[in-house]
């Protein structure tokens, strides 16, 4: 039965590919190069939207642009004032940290666009238009203005995949802004987009409305993560439902945070994230 033989040969080949990719990470480097082969598909697929976006920008009314400019100027002036006071506090903070022998909150920031095509239909993942060539590596944190979005889990030469906080396999350590209580959050993974804080001691001071901020590590310390919606009593531990601060599905531009010494292999990053 040559037909059956061919089937098993193809099956075996595919399985070999999967094992060498998932288990041995054999294609970590080669993948980046191979992905250039499929770049034409991505380009062809996104072309209509890019043209439409370009046309819309071009046709934007002059008055709208002038009004927007004035608004942005005002905003810039306000932010400059805020930034001045922040500079003062940052300097003060650095000095205090130096006295206490604590490491600074170093780390680099990169900006990336969210690709309109979604990475994975059945799990919380988005795709970014930056990759290894732009200095992104697996494990880096992804945030937007409002809060933490997730973590880079796969990188090609020119694109990367981000696992959202709402994914059940994604975790993040956070602190309650009010009292510095440490909680560990993971995605609910049920399509609600919510996060779950588990293993909360029954006596811990945590209530609905509490703001949670990232604790550091791979995530930018102090960046908002979410707000507690409801605390659910349980035995032996309580748990809490948390509404994420970031708009996962509507963010168009995101920031990527590279913590100091964050460059990792994808495997290590996946392990660290879980």
């Amino acid at each position: 039965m040559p037909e059956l033989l061919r089937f098993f040969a193809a099956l075996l080949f595919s399985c070999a590919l999967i094992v060498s990719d998932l288990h041995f990470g054999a294609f970590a480097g080669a993948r980046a190069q191979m992905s250039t082969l499929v770049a034409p598909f991505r380009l062809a697929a996104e072309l209509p939207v890019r043209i439409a976006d370009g046309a819309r920008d071009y046709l934007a009314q002059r008055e709208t642009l002038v009004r927007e400019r004035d608004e942005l100027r005002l905003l810039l002036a306000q932010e400059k004032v805020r930034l001045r006071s922040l500079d003062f506090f940052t300097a003060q903070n650095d000095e205090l940290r130096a006295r206490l022998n604590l490491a600074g909150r170093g780390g680099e920031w990169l900006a990336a666009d969210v690709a309109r095509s979604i990475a994975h239909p059945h799990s919380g993942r988005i795709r970014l238009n930056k990759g290894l060539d732009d200095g992104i590596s697996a494990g880096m944190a992804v945030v937007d203005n409002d809060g933490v979005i997730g973590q880079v889990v796969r990188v090609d030469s020119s694109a990367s995949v981000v696992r959202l906080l709402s994914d059940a396999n994604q975790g993040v350590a956070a602190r309650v802004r009010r009292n510095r209580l440490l909680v560990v959050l993971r995605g609910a993974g049920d399509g609600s987009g919510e996060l779950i804080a588990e293993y909360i001691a029954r006596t811990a001071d945590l209530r609905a409305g509490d703001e949670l901020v990232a604790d550091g590590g791979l995530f930018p310390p102090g960046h908002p993560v979410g707000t507690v919606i409801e605390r659910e009593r349980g035995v032996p531990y309580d748990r809490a439902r948390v509404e994420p601060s970031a708009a996962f599905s509507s963010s168009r531009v995101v920031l990527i945070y590279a913590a100091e010494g964050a460059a990792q292999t994808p495997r290590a990053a996946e392990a660290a994230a879980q």
Partner: protein
Amino acid sequence: MNATVYGEHAERGAPLLRIAASFFIALALEFAPWGEWLFRHKPAFPALALVFWSIYRPRTVGYAAAVLVGVATDLAAQTPLGFNALAYCVMLFFAGHLRGRFALLGAAGQAAHVLFILATAQMTLYVLGIFDEGLPQLTWRRFTPSLSGAALWLALPLLLNYWRGARPQP
């Protein structure tokens, strides 16, 4: 509708270039910016193209093509290499076994068979997903791409006939 839905068009000779072009278009469609809702529910275009050619051009499009298209899908979707390749091979196995029936079936019967064939690929991907990211939830929503794929199989010949000025047979 008559027995062979696509047969006559496909039989008219499909050079390798046309088959390759159809896969290129299918892959471009697969990664078009659909928006979230459409992305979840659109048919799996490369799978549909594979099923089509494996039924009407089984000597040209077989397991080798399935692995090639699967690897291309994996690279573009950034899924672990081999996931889609394996799913497409399983799908073509069933397509190969049901191929003989397609000449005898009406459009609705063909669509039902295509639904089953596409669902085998979805199911394979689900099982493989366990190795990648733990046990994902299995709901009927996972199979909406197969449903829409079967619907497309049903609708496309009607549209093609309409476009060419022919009326479908009563």
